[in-house]
């Protein structure tokens, strides 16, 4: 069963121009659009795409760190990691819930992910080779996600903005546990410090790619910003992330793998080197190190657990009050 969808005037009907004006006035006043409001089909489509791929990213994002659940070095670290991975599942659920208010169907979105008809973030196609990767994901990947997500708390679509407020509250724990893990390792043996540096070397550039293509190559940005779905451009957010992260790297005692990284004294901002966009393109189009593995595991989770769904449905059916 999908969310109750409500009648909308057919496209091109005489009322549509008035509805469009009302929609634009709501956006212009920085008020929120709610599920029952009329909205242009492009707005609805953009939101469904964006929220669904965000939800898919949270769900697939459980896998790289989930790989370390059984190998975490202490009960404390295991409990923390378990809580974090559970949060990622929760974030996916909040977002699917928001997508359903737009008329999307949750099971249908999952099918589209598994059949590779919808995508998720490129970052989760990289492997977690050592335990230090768990810390670096919390620090850099969740740090980049926070940069992207905090402005989305003011997104023009009410259910999406409310879901993002919930997500952002929880992401802060994710980033801090990662940084604390890395600080602990940096106080350890030379081998542990080398492990942290190696993880930073591997995750730094993919983290910068998380913000998407440069502004002059991002044709959808203008429309999304006009609609209030997006509040800052990719390059603005990327720069903000770099400026926040460089001092954190200095405190941690690691080197960011970019020889061109330098403080611009006139602006107080950090200049960084050229990003290899062909790598992003390659990983996005399915040729990353772990794309096949991620999808295969998501498919197995759906198929292998189908009997639980069916049993619960049968039980509910049997006990339904007629």
């Amino acid at each position: 069963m999908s969310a109750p969808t409500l009648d909308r005037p057919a496209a091109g009907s005489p009322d549509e121009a008035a509805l469009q004006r009302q929609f634009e006035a709501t956006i212009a006043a920085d008020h929120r659009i709610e599920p029952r409001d009329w909205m242009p089909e492009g707005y609805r489509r953009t939101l469904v795409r964006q929220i669904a791929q965000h939800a898919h990213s949270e769900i697939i994002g459980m896998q790289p760190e989930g790989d370390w659940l059984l190998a975490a070095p202490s009960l404390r670290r295991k409990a923390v990691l378990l809580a974090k991975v559970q949060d990622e599942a929760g974030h996916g659920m909040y977002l699917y819930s928001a997508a359903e208010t737009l008329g999307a169907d949750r099971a249908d979105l999952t099918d589209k992910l598994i059949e590779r008809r919808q995508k998720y973030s490129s970052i989760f196609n990289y492997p977690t080779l050592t335990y230090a990767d768990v810390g670096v994901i919390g620090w850099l990947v969740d740090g980049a996600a926070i940069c992207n997500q905090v402005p989305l708390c003011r997104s023009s679509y009410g259910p999406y903005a409310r879901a993002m407020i919930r997500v952002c509250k929880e992401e802060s724990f994710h980033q801090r546990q990662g940084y604390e893990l890395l600080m602990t390792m940096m106080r350890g043996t030379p081998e542990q410090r080398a492990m942290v540096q190696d993880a930073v070397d591997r995750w730094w550039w993919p983290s910068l790619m998380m913000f998407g293509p440069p502004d002059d190559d991002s044709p959808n940005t203008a429309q999304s910003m006009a609609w209030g779905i997006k509040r800052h451009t990719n390059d603005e957010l990327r720069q903000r992330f770099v400026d926040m992260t460089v001092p954190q790297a200095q405190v941690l005692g690691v080197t960011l793998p970019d020889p061109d990284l330098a403080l611009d004294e006139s602006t107080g901002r950090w200049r960084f080197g050229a990003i290899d966009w062909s790598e992003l393109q390659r990983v996005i189009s399915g040729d990353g190190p772990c794309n096949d593995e991620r999808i295969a595991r998501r498919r197995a989770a759906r198929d292998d657990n189908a009997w639980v769904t069916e049993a619960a449905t049968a039980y509910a059916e049997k006990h339904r009050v007629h």
Partner: protein
Amino acid sequence: MSTDLTAEGGHGAVPTGPEVPTAPSPSVSRRDWPLYEVFVRGKRGLNHVHVGSLHAPDDEMAVHAARDLYTRRNEGVSIWVVKAADITASSPDEKDPMFAPSGDKVYRHPTFYEIPENVPHM
């Protein structure tokens, strides 16, 4: 590089080209359990407030799932769930005439009545 990429989803870059379908397909899967709306009382003295939705096979499982999904950090002391299909709402457009009459009845508000300054406690 190709231009059909975005990072709008908050969690990183993904493609947006025409090959990426976005509209809900008409033949939606029927596997899914009913949709429930979830309401949480944050603490004693507050109303239950809508927090989101989830799918569950029955009412009892919906409460358990809501506990795990929406109150992992002491966000509430009480949960209500109700099937979304059982909710009757005022109207598709919240600006419709249903709410117009209350705009006319300004005499329902205390500020409608003029009381001299020297009258205490009013």
